[in-house]
């Protein structure tokens, strides 16, 4: 019964996520374009899948993964070696990003586009491996981003210097990276930080900043997301140059 209620609440949240997009599209279809939407039935079935899927996904995270994640983050914040903490940060960033739905979707789409344009071989195998490699590069970069963010909280480094250094690196790498990777690389940053990564990483950051003397959870607890958003750009650009 409790789980049914919880899933009901998640369904409502997922609907609220989707509603603005559907409303805007409905408005443009009905008032501006005045055209029938092709395959409307199929799309509606898909939308139901999206809502139910997102509700189940988030309910599963809340009841299963997030509680362990939060308790581990708290345990590390209060005691334990810095090395283990950093190892945990690396694994957490990596694992959370691998399971991020938006990244799975965008990596597959990027592989599709690259295959159609002839940048990679147009076979299932080439597409799958391109998408997989892209996701691994992004996940590794988020792992390192969380390590850097945790180090920042431990050492009390000012966030803006690190971010500005990142911007400069991105600018320099852009000059040397092949044109076809630049768009995907820039997008990779925004894609990674959604459903799984944001709650897990925020729990870690706020937990750490609360337990370390002289750190303000409001000030120092934030910034991990910003790193997780910037680092993939650098890594994917570098990956494009090596490829």
């Amino acid at each position, binding site marked *: 019964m409790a789980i049914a209620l919880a899933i009901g609440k998640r369904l409502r949240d997922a609907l609220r*996520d989707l509603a*603005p*997009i559907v409303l*805007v599209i409905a408005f*443009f279809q009905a008032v*501006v*374009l005045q055209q029938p*939407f092709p*395959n409307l039935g*199929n*799309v509606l079935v*898909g*939308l139901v*899948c*999206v809502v139910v*899927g*997102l*509700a*189940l*996904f988030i*309910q*599963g995270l*809340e*009841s*299963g*993964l997030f509680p*362990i*994640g939060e308790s*581990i983050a708290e*345990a590390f914040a209060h005691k334990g070696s810095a090395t283990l903490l950093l190892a945990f940060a690396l*694994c*957490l960033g990596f*694992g*959370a990003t691998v*399971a991020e*739905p*938006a990244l799975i*979707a965008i990596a597959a*789409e990027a592989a599709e*586009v690259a295959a159609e344009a002839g*940048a990679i071989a147009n076979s299932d195998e080439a597409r799958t491996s391109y998408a997989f490699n892209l996701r691994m590069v992004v996940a590794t970069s988020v792992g390192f981003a969380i390590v850097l963010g945790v180090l920042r909280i431990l050492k009390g480094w000012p966030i*803006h210097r690190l971010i500005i250094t990142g911007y400069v690196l*991105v*600018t320099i790498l*852009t000059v040397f990276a092949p044109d076809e990777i*630049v*768009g*995907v690389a*820039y*997008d990779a940053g*925004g*894609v990674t930080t*959604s*459903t799984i990564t944001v709650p897990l990483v925020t729990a870690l950051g706020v937990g750490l900043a609360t337990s370390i003397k002289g750190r303000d959870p*409001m*000030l120092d607890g*934030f*910034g991990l*997301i*910003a790193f997780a958003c910037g680092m993939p750009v650098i890594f994917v650009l570098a990956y494009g140059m090596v490829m």
Partner: protein
Amino acid sequence: MSALLDFAADFLGTVATTVFDVLPILAILVVFQVVVLRRRVQNLRGIVVGFLCVLLGLALFLIGLERALFPIGETMARQLTEAAATSGAAVDWRDYTLVYAFAAAIGFAATLAAPPLLAVALKAQKVSGGAISAWGLRIAVAVGVAVGVSLGCFRIVTGTPLPWYIVAAYVVVIVQTFRASRTIIPLAYDSGGVTTSTVTVPVVAALGLGLAANVPGRSPLIDGFGLIAFASVFPIMSVLGYAAVVSLIGRLGKGGNAAGTAGSNDQTKGTELNPS
């Protein structure tokens, strides 16, 4: 019946592949809990049920994505460009006003509804001691995303290089950072990351790719990506800008009041002095 069978096959296939997407994070959490921290895993049943929910949910979401979110973005891009492409072979960016309007509307509406943003906005209100209102911040972020996605579409239509825009945005953010108060900076940077929700990302990405495929002379590979980057950078700018305006108004208000009272004091002194 066969449609149902197709769906079942599709679903099972997706579940089989998503197992490997969800396993790493589960394994990492369990290993750290049991091996490193040497604590028992509590509520094992809840975790198993949760894991199954995550698995089924992710598979359903990915199927819905293929059937609904991507086609929606692509269809909108196609229909909007068809409505625009009337004036012959040369691409004139002014023909695509509808595209920019649609992009701005999607960006604004989807961002305003995003739950993570609400959490960040409430924290910002607390940090600033109420100077920055949660609603003000949410609107600032939503306007940032709307302008960003809209400008991103303009870039795709004109085919101008993506780095020009993003690097220029970086420069503006850096300049703003040096003028901003220390408390707002981490929040502003984070607000860029939280805006792009799991539902919005595929629709916006498909819009960009569809646009690049339909506007003459554009290639999806070079021009199609980048909208999400716009949606991540522009909110940082608009939040820093909003904070600057709030503090400026605060200072002007205080400064104005202080000057006003000082002036009236002088005047009263003057009037007192005059008769004597």
